[in-house]
Each structure stands twice: as structure tokens, then as C-alpha cells.
């Protein structure tokens, strides 16, 4: 019984992890290649969720809604890159932090003004409702399985892009040594814009997929942004592989911690103390994980930069 | 025979599959200018970094002033009398030249956990710093913000910062890199003036400078020392000629 629960919780952690990966992938690419701290990445997650919800309502089809919303979010990302972020590449990180923090405020307020302050209704499409028995006795929501599937597919696609295409070659070159990428004589400006659009599309996709299970509301991207930063720091900035490993790690640690820490503490201390300590430690767990990783590996698990 | 100032034994440094320093041994005696030359990628800067303590070797020992310093940090080595300059100019660009050198003096004038008295009005720091600037010929430029100095002056400033720590051994990583002919000549004069008073390990691409200054030369190829000797011996060494030096260069 406990084994089955552990398995189910592992699926939960995996699902959370792939979601985080979608967020972190774009963030780590933008950070690694352009050396750009983009706090507004969470806003793209939110914008993606809002656009997808709206398109779904218009078209009546969840799939169509997402198919339309992914390029739309990419376009929003590209617009942000061209209008604001492009001028910030040669600034130091603090200027970038401040300006993109301004963008967060702006986007939260924009969404609130356009769609209203109330949370939007967003539901799982009919064909993904219900449960699937992953193994006999463990029913699991079909939609969450779909998230895992989409997430892994995107991870695989990204892996193929990075390792097999010319753009991927440039991305890798850029992440490890920016001057070199410039020296290769490619149109860096265009590359940056494309990468940013790609990152925005991933973040938007994460928001779209999460929308039906959580809340589509102003500011929904802020908490997930911090988590995504934790992921790319643990993974090593600029490393897509690191982001994937770290996202799954954070997903599993957070989920398993929430599920089992209170019981674990009950083995040692009184129930009431365990009830107080368990959730508190569970909330801190990923931060403790990050601090521990950085203690032993100050550049994260997979440092991408060589120079 | 007196013990060498610096003795390197069996030094090894690997980066992934690449062996940047390959079982390298070297000894530098007091008062000499010991040049290390080699083609690009021979591992010269990697060697300097290990000598100065910025990079930890994978194997081997470094002895300096009679003790094993292999496990010491860069700042600890500095306090034993080791000073370095960097291949890519490494100064404090926002500070005036004098402040750059004063910071180096300060590092060797007791601890710096002093939070109250203005450092810029501390004669105990300013005077030695001025002296070091004078020694490299920058006294007149003391008040200029380092970023605004010419490239050649910045290289001189680096030497002044190294001298200000009162080192017994100077590690100079291509002090003439990027310099024009006039600037190079001035630097050669400067280094010649230091000769005898300081022991120097000199990495340099400018062969004229090397052969004009060096007492002994070590030739690195792929991280290995293929020869060590006086300039004349190195000129005559067939292996060196074949591996590295073109006849035209040696002249």
C-alpha cells in the first residue's frame, strides 16, 4: 500500500517537475546565452494561460486554444524582447532585475485591467477528464498524465533542437562562450530574439497546461518564477540538461517532502510538534536543497559556462 | 649550492581530456630572470595560475622559499613573497593609479579590518605606493583614474602593484602583450632595471625581449618542458628549433 502511494507521489512529483522544466528551459537559455536576468518570465507564463483560456472559450476547443496561444505568447515574448529587453543586454544584472521587475508590475496590472481582477474559469477538456489506472489500484488523473507526456515531449524536442540543429549549435556556443558565438558571424540579434520567443512559448505552454488545474488569475506567474529560478540555479545557468534534472529533482523533493515529512517527523516527536515542524520544513525544503547544492557546487550541478 | 627560490616538481593539470600541464618540473634560482616560452596553447598561463595559486594542480609539488606551497591559496602565497601580473590587464579600473598600488601596499601592511581612518590619507600606504609608481615611471600619472591610462601605462601599473607587495618572486604573464614598439622598449628597460633585485618568472611572446632579458629559458610544448637552458643553449637546441622556434625568429 505504502509502495503504491509512493509511486503515485512520484508521478505527482514528475508532473510538477516537467511543468517546472517548461518554465526553467526558457529562463536558463535566456540567462545562459544573453546573460539576461528576466524576471518577467513568470509574466509570460501568466499571459500564456490567459490567452489560451480566452482562445479556448472562443473556439470551444482546448487543443485549438493551445495551438493558437503558443505562437501568440511567443509573439508577446518577442515584442517584449524587441521593445524593452534588447536595450538591457549590455547592462548589469541589477538593471535587468529592476527593469524586468517593472515589467512584472506592468503585466499583472495589464491582465487585471483587460480580463478583470477575478480568476478566470478554465477547465480540463472533456477528452482528458477522468482517471487512468497507471497500474491496477492506482487511479491517476488523465490530464496530469497528459501534462507529463507533453512535458517530456517538449524536453525531447528541445534536446533535439539543441543537439541536432544549427540553431542549437549556436545556442550551445552562446551558452558556453558568447564572444565565440559572435565571432561565428551569425546574426546574434536575430538569434536572441528567436531564443527569447522560444522561451516565451515554453513558459506560455506551462501556464496553459497548468491553467485548468490551478487558478488563472493576475500574479499567477510570480510564485512559479521563484521556483523556476531555483531550478536553473540548481541545474547550472545555461544548461538545458541541468534545468531538466533540477526541475525533476525539485518536483520530486517538494512533492515527496510535502507528502511524507510530517509522518516522518511523527516517528521522532509528538504528533503536535510534527504537525508544526513538518509543514514548515516542507515549505523550506527546496530552498534547503538549493543552499545545499550551492554549498557543494557553487556553480550548480551542470555548469554550462566554460570561459 | 643554494636552494632554488622556486622549485616545481612533476606538476600536472588536466582539463577534461586535455593535459595543460604535463609532468612539469622547473627550478628558478635567486636573482635570475627565468623566461618560459612556448607556442599558443602550450600551457604557459595555466602554469602561472598554478604557481600563483589561482588554479589547483592535479598532481605534483610547488616549493617556494623553502616550503611546500602547493596547498596554499593565492593570498597566502602573496604573503610569502609571490606576486603576479596578468596576461589580460587586471587592475582596478575605477580607482586612480595611486589607489591601485596603495591597495597592494595595504594588503601587506597588517590586516585591513580597520573601519575608521581614511585610507587615502594614510601616509603609511601612500608613500610606498608612490615609490612603487615611481619605480615603474608612473609617478606623474598617480592621480589619473586607471581606466583612462594608456594600455602601456596600465601594464606598467600592473608591475607597480606587483612590486608594491615587496615580492621575492615576480610572475609576469606577457607584460608586453598588446604593446607598441615604444611601449615595449620602455617595458624592457623597466624589467632590466628590476633584474638582480627581484627574481622573475617571465612569460613572453616577444622573443627579442626574452632573449634580451632572460638568464635562463624554459620551453613549453603541450604542457611539457622540452628544454631549459641559457638563451644560447636554447638557440642551439635542435628539439626546440624543430618543435617551436623558426630559424628566422632566432636570428
Amino acid at each position, binding site marked *: *500500500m505504502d509502495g*503504491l*502511494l509512493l509511486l*503515485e*507521489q512520484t508521478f*505527482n*512529483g514528475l*508532473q*510538477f517537475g516537467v511543468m517546472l522544466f517548461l518554465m526553467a528551459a526558457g529562463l536558463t537559455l535566456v540567462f545562459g546565452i544573453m546573460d539576461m536576468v528576466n524576471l518577467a518570465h513568470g509574466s509570460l507564463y501568466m499571459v500564456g494561460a490567459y490567452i489560451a483560456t480566452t482562445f479556448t472559450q472562443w473556439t470551444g476547443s482546448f487543443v485549438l486554444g493551445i495551438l493558437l496561444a503558443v505562437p501568440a505568447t511567443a509573439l508577446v515574448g518577442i515584442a517584449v524582447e524587441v521593445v524593452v529587453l534588447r536595450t538591457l543586454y549590455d547592462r548589469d544584472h541589477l538593471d535587468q532585475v529592476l527593469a524586468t521587475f517593472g515589467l512584472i508590475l506592468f503585466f*499583472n496590472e495589464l491582465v*487585471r485591467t483587460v480580463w478583470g*481582477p*477575478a*480568476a*478566470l*474559469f*478554465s*477547465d*480540463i477538456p472533456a477528452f482528458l*477528464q*477522468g*482517471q487512468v489506472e497507471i497500474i491496477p489500484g492506482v*487511479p491517476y*488523473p488523465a*490530464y*496530469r498524465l497528459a501534462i507529463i507526456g507533453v512535458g517530456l515531449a517538449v524536453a525531447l524536442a528541445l534536446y533535439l533542437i539543441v543537439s541536432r540543429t544549427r540553431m542549437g549549435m549556436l545556442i550551445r556556443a552562446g551558452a558556453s562562450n558568447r564572444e565565440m558565438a559572435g565571432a561565428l558571424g551569425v546574426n546574434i540579434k536575430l538569434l536572441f530574439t528567436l531564443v527569447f520567443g522560444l522561451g516565451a512559448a515554453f513558459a506560455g505552454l506551462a501556464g496553459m497546461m*497548468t491553467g*485548468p*488545474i*490551478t*487558478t*488563472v*488569475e*493576475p*500574479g*499567477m506567474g*510570480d*510564485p*512559479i518564477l521563484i521556483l523556476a529560478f531555483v531550478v536553473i540555479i540548481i541545474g547550472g545557468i545555461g544548461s538545458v540538461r541541468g534545468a531538466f534534472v533540477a526541475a525533476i529533482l525539485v518536483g520530486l523533493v517538494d*512533492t*515527496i517532502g*510535502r*507528502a511524507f515529512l*510530517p509522518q516522518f517527523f511523527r516517528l521522532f516527536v509528538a504528533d503536535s510538534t510534527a*504537525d508544526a515542524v*513538518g*509543514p*514548515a520544513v*516542507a*515549505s523550506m525544503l527546496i530552498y534547503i536543497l538549493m543552499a545545499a547544492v550551492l554549498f557543494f557546487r557553487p556553480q550548480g550541478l551542470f555548469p554550462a559556462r566554460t570561459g | 649550492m643554494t636552494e632554488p627560490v622556486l622549485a616545481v616538481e612533476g606538476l600536472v593539470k588536466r582539463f577534461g581530456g586535455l593535459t595543460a600541464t604535463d609532468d612539469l618540473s622547473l627550478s628558478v634560482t635567486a636573482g635570475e630572470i627565468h623566461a618560459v616560452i612556448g607556442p599558443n596553447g602550450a600551457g604557459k598561463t595555466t602554469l602561472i595560475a598554478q604557481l600563483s595559486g589561482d588554479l589547483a594542480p592535479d598532481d605534483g609539488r610547488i616549493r617556494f622559499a623553502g616550503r611546500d606551497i602547493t596547498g596554499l591559496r593565492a593570498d597566502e602565497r602573496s604573503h610569502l613573497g609571490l606576486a603576479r601580473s596578468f596576461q589580460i590587464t587586471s587592475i582596478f579600473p575605477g580607482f586612480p593609479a595611486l589607489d591601485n598600488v596603495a591597495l597592494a601596499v595595504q594588503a601587506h601592511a597588517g590586516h585591513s579590518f580597520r573601519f575608521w581612518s581614511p585610507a587615502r590619507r594614510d601616509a603609511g600606504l601612500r608613500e610606498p605606493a608612490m615609490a612603487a609608481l615611481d619605480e615603474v615611471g608612473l609617478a606623474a600619472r598617480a592621480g589619473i583614474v586607471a581606466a583612462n591610462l594608456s594600455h602601456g601605462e596600465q601594464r606598467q601599473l600592473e608591475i607597480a602593484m606587483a612590486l608594491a607587495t615587496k615580492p621575492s618572486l615576480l610572475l609576469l604573464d606577457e607584460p608586453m602583450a598588446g604593446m607598441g614598439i615604444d611601449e615595449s622598449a620602455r617595458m624592457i628597460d623597466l624589467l632590466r632595471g628590476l633584474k638582480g633585485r627581484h627574481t622573475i618568472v617571465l612569460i613572453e611572446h616577444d622573443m627579442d625581449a626574452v632573449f634580451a632579458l632572460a638568464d635562463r629559458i624554459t620551453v613549453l610544448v603541450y604542457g611539457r618542458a622540452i628544454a631549459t637552458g641559457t638563451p644560447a643553449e636554447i638557440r642551439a637546441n635542435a628539439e626546440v628549433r624543430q618543435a617551436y622556434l623558426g630559424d628566422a625568429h632566432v636570428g
Partner: protein
Amino acid sequence: MKKKLVGLVSALALLATPSLAADKVKVGFIVTLSGPAGIIGKHMKDGFELGLEHVGGKIGGLETEVIFGDDQRKPDVAKQLVDKMIKRDRVQFVTGVIWSNLMMAIHGPVTRSDTFLISSNAGPSPIAGKRCSENFFSVSWQNDQTPEAMGKYLQDKGIDNVYLMAPNYQAGKDMLAGVRRYYKGKVAGQVFTKLGQQDYSAELSTLRAAGPDAVFVFLPGGMGINFVKQYAQAGLKDSIPLYTAFTADAVTLPAQKDAALGVLGTQTWSPDLANPVNKRFVADFRAKHGYIPSFYAAQAYDTVRFLDAAVAKVGNVSDRDALRAAMRAGDFPNTRGSIKFNNNHFPIQNFYMREVVKQDDGSFTTKIRGIVFPAYGDSYAKDCKMSW
């Protein structure tokens, strides 16, 4: 630079318009308006404004000025707002206040000054007990009462083996303690989740494995939307009944919809309460603002009616003792029918069981299913030394 600051100082001096007109009613209204958490504040502001409309824009028939303040959900910003309202605007009443921690931050400073503090929502236990004040009134409820009503309901119905869940913060702990004060059956499990948590998959898996007969959750706002949707998506809604407090209301229902259908929760108010004040309030609110009011809106509305009744009875706002006596009398027109005040100035009122239903127009609302506690006072009143 000097010139700049001198300019600033004189500008500040100009901003200050000292007005000591004693018979002008000045009310400060503090809620969270800006930023992502602004939705509840909007409900309350809309309710408050409708209340003003219903009293003809004049509280107690006197000229009235309302100063709206946005606390950004930060305690120190709230504290600064009340400083400004009391010292600069010289209000006689500070009202509103959504969050318990903000209430804790301003309770002392306001009640120590010659200003009345009227809570339109927050009701943390310290200010209901030992720290009760004669300058404070609540027209909402004490935090523990709603879960206590739920605990009593579960106990009375003989429901056993209940699984309890709340966020890991003070209100969450108070809520579960409140349920357990009346519910004496078996607890299948008790879980404290992260504040602001978005995904409850881990908790739902653990919950399912524990096999409870019923589930009680307190997950306000966005957390409630997340949980209720995920509870339904996990297929648990049809097998294990869900009991709630502050988890399914007019703020969250538009985003929960069918997932919340049939969910039960205790509350002091519901849109379908059949008293004339409430009927008018709900009808006018929907007409004016275009959405179904929440209890937040109703309480903000009642705040205006409460002030209006007291000021009208006294005829001025300078006789504070008379005002206090008038307020203590209770029995002002309000959306809940009848409100009396306990010795600690918290209401004694009915607590109802409400169920989420779907209306003919496709919208979702709550309907009263019965009274759990008639005329119920809170359990901290006995710690309050005040008597009158």
C-alpha cells in the same frame, strides 16, 4: 536638491487641509485594492459603495467623506494608512480590513487613538479576547466561529473519520482548532499545506490513501479554486463529501463552477437569505456591478448601514460615548437579518450551512440549507474584561 525638499515640504503642507468640522462624517476604508490580491478588495469596495448609495451618500444624514486606502496586503502599509487617516484626514471611523495580520498590525494604534475601528472582515482571536477594546467593533465574525459551526454540523450529523486540511499559517491552524472544538469524532488525518500552494496533487494522493469518510478544508481565495478543481478532477468529489469554510464563495465560484457544485460550507450570510435588506442589496448589487455579491461585499455593505444607524441615532460624530452606546445597541438594518453585539463587540448572529448550486442562467451561487448555530457568540468573549 535643497530647493526640491523645501518645495516638497510646502507641497505637503498644502496637501493638509485641516478640517475640524465636527459634524462631517469621515470614514477611512482600508482593503487590498492593487496588485494580484485585489479581487476581495474590489468586492468589498463595491459593497461599501452600494451601502453609501442606499443611505443617500450621507451616513446618519450628515455630510460624509470616505477615504479609500489600499493596504497592498502589507502590515506596515496598513499601519501607515491608518496613521494618515487618523492624523491627516482625521477620520472618526476606520473600517474595512480583510486580513487578520493587517488587523493585528493596526488594532493597537487605531483603538488607542480617539477613533473607532470597525472590522468588515478580519476577526483574529487576540482582539476578541484579552486585547478587546471599547473602540473596536466587528460587523463580520470571529475567525473561529465559522469552523466551529462546521465542527458542530459534522458532530450533529454523526459524520465520522474526517480528514482536515488548511494552509500552514495562523488562520489555518485556528480553523482546524475551531472544527475540532465541536467535532469529537475520529480524525483520519490532519494536513497543513504551504500558504499560497497551487498544486495539491501530493495531498490528494495522501488523502485518498487515508480513506476518510469526509473531508474538511479551509483554503481561501486562489488556494480554494485550485483545491476544489483538483479534488473534482481526482474523482474524489463523488466519493468523499467535501465540507468547507471560506473555500467556495462568490469570489471563487466563477472560477470553480461545476467542480464546486454541491460543496457544503458554513457562513453567516448567503445571497438567498430572505430578509428585505438582503433582497434589496443582492438585487441592486447585481444590477450595479454585474456580478453576484460575496459575503465580503455584504459585510462591507453592512458596515455602512451599521455606521449610518449609530450616527443617525446620536446626530453627531463628536459624542464618542453616545456613539459607542448606539453601536452597542445593534439592530441596524443589515443583510443578515439580526445582529446583536457580545460584550467583546463581536456580533452574535446565525451561522448557516450553505450549499453550492447552479442557477438557471448558468451562474453558480450558494443556497441556505439550514441553521447550524442560531444567535451564536464567539468563545473568546469570556476572556474579554469589557462589560456593559
